């Protein structure tokens, strides 16, 4: 199940008191694909982490549906992430000692017993859909493209309605990046997911419904993809 996103008066301040992000209002209807771009250090990743409920000490509200992440304890946010959010990182962040399925179904180790079979089954089906071989090899031997596919399968294994991706193609060469964009967008659309992808990659941004531009911690533009 996917959820609408509503940010109100969101402000994130660094430990040293510097204002990192300041968003008056942002609304994203469920099922939209949103790109976020902007210069390095502008606050794109901070926005993404705020949406994931990974930041402490933010003010304002981050509503996914009826849930305000800003009002939850860290433990409750973790539970929300485990159920609702799939995360994809620039450098994949896989456990090199585990195989493709072990990584993709990582959540089975900490989710309740009743969910484990489903998680493993979904992880396996996404891996096969993404063309990643499920064998005895650990992911240490995989190419970058394969590794990011495993990460996508991991993000989808909990059947989350929300996908948050931080520079998903930045570590890949062009060909692999294009292939990955195809797969990611297709999976998000098919599953009716809400996706927020921070990226410099024009090819990825071009496939989004909307592209937000962040500069100096502020949303300076909110454009349809065609206009970007």
């Amino acid at each position: 199940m996917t959820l609408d996103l509503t940010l109100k008066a969101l402000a994130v301040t660094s430990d040293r008191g510097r204002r990192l992000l300041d968003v008056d209002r942002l609304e994203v209807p469920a099922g939209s694909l949103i790109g976020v771009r902007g210069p390095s250090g502008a606050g794109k990743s901070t926005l993404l982490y705020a949406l994931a409920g990974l930041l402490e000490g933010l003010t304002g509200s981050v509503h996914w549906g009826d849930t305000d992440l800003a009002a939850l304890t860290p433990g409750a946010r973790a539970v929300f992430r485990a159920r609702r959010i799939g995360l994809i990182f620039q450098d994949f962040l896989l456990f090199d000692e585990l195989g493709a399925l072990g990584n993709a179904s990582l959540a089975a180790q900490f989710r309740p017993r009743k969910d484990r079979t489903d998680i493993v089954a979904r992880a396996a089906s996404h891996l096969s859909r993404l063309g990643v071989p499920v064998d005895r090899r650990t992911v240490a031997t995989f190419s970058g493209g394969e590794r990011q596919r495993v990460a996508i399968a991991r993000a989808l294994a909990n059947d989350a309605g929300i996908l948050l991706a931080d520079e998903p193609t930045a570590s890949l060469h062009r060909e692999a990046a294009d292939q990955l964009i195809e797969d990611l967008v297709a999976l998000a659309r098919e599953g009716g997911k809400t996706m927020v992808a921070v990226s410099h990659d024009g090819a990825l941004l071009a496939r989004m419904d909307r592209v937000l531009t962040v500069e100096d911690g502020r949303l300076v533009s909110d454009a349809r993809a065609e206009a970007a």
Partner: protein
Amino acid sequence: MRDIWLSLPSGAQDALILALFLVPALAIGVALLRGVAPFPLVSAILWRFRWANTMFVALIAISVGMGIGLVAQERGLRAGTAQAADKFDLVVTAPGSELTMLFATVFLQPQDVPLLGGAAFERVASHENVEIAAPLAFGDSYRSAPVVGTIESFARHLSDNRIEGRMWRSSGEAIAGALSELEIGAVFTPAHGHGSALEEGAHAGTEIEVVGRMAPTGTPWDRSILVPVETVWETHGLANGHAPSDAGRIGPPFDPDHFPGTPAIVVRADELWANYALRSEFTRDGETMAFFPGTVLSNLYIVMGDVRQAMSIMALVTQGLVAASVLLGLFILSRLFRRQIALLRALGASSRFVLAVMWSYGTALLATGATLGLGVGYAATAILSRIVTERTDIVVSASLGWSEFHLVAGFLSVTTILSLLPVLAQRRQSVVGGLRA
């Protein structure tokens, strides 16, 4: 409650104490692992750092093994020496050092000792509560094995009457100990003295035939050769303890006037209580001294106990240091794993799950090391026991007792609790900071 506890057999008490020691570790394990299944990750970490892990496990095993080996060995030594003294209820000698006389009689270590005369022996032997009064005449040897003159009833007492072949019937016959190189039927000539003070040929012409063999006793006496005390006296050109009219007699009674002297008398009383009366009776200024070898040994154990405590403390300190280094390793590792830990939190794992992963990993190392440590301790004890037995002929048997298991369980519980600290220390770290690390 106390009554119930005291009514339990000691094995059950020890088992309960063991369980009690393990309760904290088990409780933590249950609390952390309830509802999660972190084993793929744990085994992945174990595999990833397999060389460092092997080192950790080896360090723990060696330190634990040293600690319990020390305790077990000391207990084995005490049991072995006490067992060796078991047959020597009360020993009467000329006044001097009890310890010297203990070594001379029970452990057959060559010592220069004064002799007791016929009158002293007579007084002991004729006492109404004395069942056996056996003279022990040592000083001769055959190829480093002591040749000891005594009487038949002591030979039977010493071997629990398990003698192969037959008992001696006349002077010039001998009973060999179980480990003696002399077989039944062998004939030998004893040498005067022992070791470096040996005078070969002093007894040339004396020939003694081995007619029997004692069953093993687990004491230095297994190497000895027992002969009638008369044989020792005759070999030295002395009277043989009997009046000329009774010259062919072997064994008691002895004639005080023809009694050349004996360095020690082993006394066995007819009743246990009588031993104490006999001891005070036979302890006379300037004449005789009586002592319980068991008491002398336990005094020795008290001294040894202090040494043991010092050594136990050193072993504990070693274990503590190893545990500290393992914890430091875990701390470094959880820093190394900061990103992975942050990733787990980002993916929605609870902090309990992260704790469960790191704790399971640390506990796997500690438990493996401690278990192997039991094996190392057992092996060390077995090897040391064999060396001690070979050198002293006191049978020291290697065995692990409850206290060793308690020690290991206690070590495991304490360290496994401490192994939570490195992870707890980092629990408050920001997930995003970890992801960017």
